[in-house]
């Protein structure tokens, strides 16, 4: 094996988009491959867990783990890769803040299993069979990973050194990160490898946001003819931009869709949802409780709207009584 620095990729509870984003490096991936040895990447290479276990501790320079942690297997892999890597990077929203999978923290394990294996309209399962963690069959025990009580971000399971935010992270951020790794010029541990200002910084529509914004109504994007040049909030459409870290190059905005918050909060904020809530509610143009409520009815699912990618890392982490 060469003495090029070793890099690994792994996925946990995620959609696979992060894996694709690595491929999105396009030609640059060759440059990366030139500079490093990819020692573990289940989606692309046939390397087994026991192969990783066999590597000396700390022998991998950096591992990028995407996806949130839901099962005991993912936890085990997280522990394993943590031990084998000098640097562990949470790659993408799910690993960073829980991501969309962590919206499942609004439901109990029982609710989820019941729905998926019994109640979903496409399911036929009269015996109500559910997968069990252990099952004896012909004298051998077959095991499945344990389904945990809640979804966690990577850093809620193991110590994480850096974060690459986004759903998925942009090729530009990935490339920057790899270059930094190789050059060894790394920021302090715990840093999110993206700018520490909010989306509006650099938003092409910023000029159209009034300085005296008053929200009279919240509109839903799919029911609205959206002006492609005006600030979404000025149009009454919830945009997570003000509470979301920048660095995504305003891709959604350019596609005429409001920011939904995948880059997570800035370093000064502990709870992204609470912050956008505070900013938006403050500008609601009503004084009487009834009128306020009427305007707020325009956000039918505040948790899904404000915590779309960050419920696991929010202060409350999950629905309390599930």
């Amino acid at each position, binding site marked *: 094996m060469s003495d090029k620095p070793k890099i690994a990729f792994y996925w946990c509870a995620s959609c696979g988009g992060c894996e694709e984003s690595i491929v999105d490096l396009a030609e640059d991936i060759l440059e990366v491959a030139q500079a490093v040895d990819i020692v573990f990447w289940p989606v692309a290479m046939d390397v087994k867990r026991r192969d990783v276990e066999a590597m000396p501790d700390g022998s991998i320079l950096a591992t990028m783990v995407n996806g949130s942690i839901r099962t005991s297997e993912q936890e085990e892999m997280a522990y394993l890769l943590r031990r084998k890597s000098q640097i562990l990077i949470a790659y993408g929203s799910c690993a960073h803040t829980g991501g969309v999978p962590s919206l499942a923290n609004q439901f109990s394990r029982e609710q989820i299993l019941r729905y998926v294996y019994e109640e979903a309209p496409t399911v036929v399962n009269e015996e109500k069979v559910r997968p069990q963690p252990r099952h004896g069959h012909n004298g051998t025990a077959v095991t499945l990973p344990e389904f945990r009580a809640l979804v966690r971000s990577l850093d809620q399971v193991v110590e994480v050194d850096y974060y690459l935010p986004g759903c998925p992270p942009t090729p530009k951020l990935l490339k920057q990160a790899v270059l930094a790794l190789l050059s060894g010029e790394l920021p302090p541990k715990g840093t999110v490898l993206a700018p*520490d*200002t*909010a*989306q*509006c*910084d650099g938003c092409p529509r*910023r000029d159209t*946001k*009034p*300085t*005296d*914004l*008053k929200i009279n109504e919240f509109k839903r994007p799919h029911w609205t003819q959206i002006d492609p040049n005006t600030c979404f909030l000025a149009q009454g459409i919830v945009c997570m*931009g*003000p*509470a979301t870290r*920048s660095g995504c190059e305003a891709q959604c905005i350019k596609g005429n869709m409001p920011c939904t918050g995948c880059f997570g*909060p*800035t*370093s*000064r*904020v*502990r709870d992204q949802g609470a*912050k*956008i809530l*505070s*900013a938006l509610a*403050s*500008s609601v143009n009503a004084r009487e409780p009834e009128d306020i409520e009427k305007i707020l009815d325009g956000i039918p699912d505040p948790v899904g709207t404000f915590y779309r990618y960050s419920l696991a890392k929010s202060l409350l982490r999950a629905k309390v009584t599930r």
Partner: protein
Amino acid sequence: MSEKKNGQVRIGVYICHCGANIADTVDVKAVAEYAATLPGVVIARDYKYMCSDPGQELIQQDIEEHQINRVVVAACSPSLHEHTFRGAAERAGLNPFFVQMVNIREHDSWVHTEREAATVKAKDLVRAAVQRVYFHKPLEKRRVPIHPEVLVVGGGIAGIHAALTVANSGKKVYLVEREATIGGHMAQYDKTFPTLDCAACILTPKMSAVKAHPNIVLWTYSEVVSVDGSVGDYKVVVKRKPRYIREDLCVGCLQCIDACVFKEPKFDDEFNLGLSKRKPIYIPFPQATPKVVVIDPEACIQLRTGKCKRSCLEACVERGAIDFEQKETYEEIHVGSIIIATGFKTFDPRRLPQYGYGRYPNVYTTLEVERLVNASGPTSGQVITRDGRVPKSVGIILCVGSRDENTNRWCSRVCCMTSLKLAHLIKEHTGAEVYIFYIDMRAAGKGYEEFYQRVLNEGVHFVRGRVAEITDWALDPSEEGKLVARVEDTNTGFVRRIPLDMVVLAVGLEPQFDAHEVQRMFGISCSLDGFFLEKHPKLAPAPTYTDGIFIAGLCHGPKDIPDTVMQAGYAAAEAIALADTGYFELEPNTAYVVEEECSGCKSCVPLCPYQAITFKEDKQKAFINEVLCKGCGTCVAACPSGSIRQNLFEDEEIFSEIEGVLAYA
């Protein structure tokens, strides 16, 4: 943690016994012992009186000898002694904003009785403060300059006295009065208790002095309509209502009144409470100041219909002071401080139908009787009932609308003495039998009790009992044609029926009808009774919670003339002291934007009620003007990227406080 930023943190914790006030309920020793175990705490002490000189010296010594650089004092409310302990720290060379107070008296020992629970609470609060003070930063106090001019709102005796006092110190005063003349309620009184000197005789010289004073700008028939700014520079807009008379030209000859097309006065005279009539063009009373007539637009034919002979114009043809085209005008002034002396209104006795006011013509209020006994009043001082009789028996009912769960709970303070005075005057004028129905006689004041004795000796009947009702239903012939007071005489234990020719209701005193709007406009508070709230009930009874705004007279609560004058002088002294100091020190609790963190989302800009936040187009960042910021922190809470901070209330400071009180949860 932030050790680098703040150096080695060395916290001193001081638990005050406050004599027995705290120590009786909170185990102060245990709290101090506990505090000593907290991270960062170098010294924890308890002491009998932390606010005393030796107490403060204790802190100073520890700062000097033990290099304490954070101070937590668990004692009373920070509103009382925060400045004391900050001062102590400052004297020892520590930045005063490294001090954090914990309120274990008002919020703990005085409201709880269970020693264990109170001690646990004290520990929680101390721990929160220790965790919080860790993050404190050195801050500079802010100084704002004080505009030397003073606004006095209300031209009753309180406003008059305050205005004269400030003006005599050489400062310019604006005196704004809603009515057409200054004088207020005192001008309506006949004699004053207990000396019986005539109210007008002592008041009118002061009114003239106001008019003549070179430092006083007097605006009558005017109202403050908006107040902006803060201590040192209040921007005030005053609406000057049209009186349809050019004040600079009118000399008060009153010939226009004679000339009015209304030959007889036809409209209720407000000054005499409707007991006499006036014309559409009138002067409130002979000594009105300024002595300028005024036209009632509701009554004047010219102003109502535009079709009048306008004989008044002819009478004033030479001076040309009458101006039907006059419109309201607005004056904008800048003042450093404001004295509010907007007075009171009397209780409307129609709210107590059992006393028949408004139903029986011979039921009066004390204020009406003041006018009746006044030599220049509607009856030239003759006490005659509305049906034209000289009363042979008069009953004065005390506490009408006062000391009553159903109306107002407070004692109006002046009604006992007013009633004694009126009893004396009525007896003097008519020789009638006078009954005073009372619950308690309250004659506390210089010469008051002596006056009570005098009226007792004059043969006034005192019946102790709350009158149940005034009725005109006669039980027997002796009551025919009279009003009857039904009352349980609690001294004798009998229910009595006392026939009377005239009933006088000693109505209580209430906040002005628009006190709430005034309170909001000036940004001050009201107490539960609706009167304006003072900063401290004992030690600061004229300042308010809003710096640079003082209250005087009955807008603050019922009081008699001497107390009113004293409070007005006190308010004036505060205003003068403020102006002479020339500056005012503000808490450095302003908010600021960290420029490199701001994304320019503009969420904060519309939230500031003081327009302190602007959006800098060149930098595409928000900016907070520290001079305009009042430190509420609303923008800080709203900043979606956490880029606005508030001095003294940083996010980390509050989070650590929250987590401090919940450490055991």
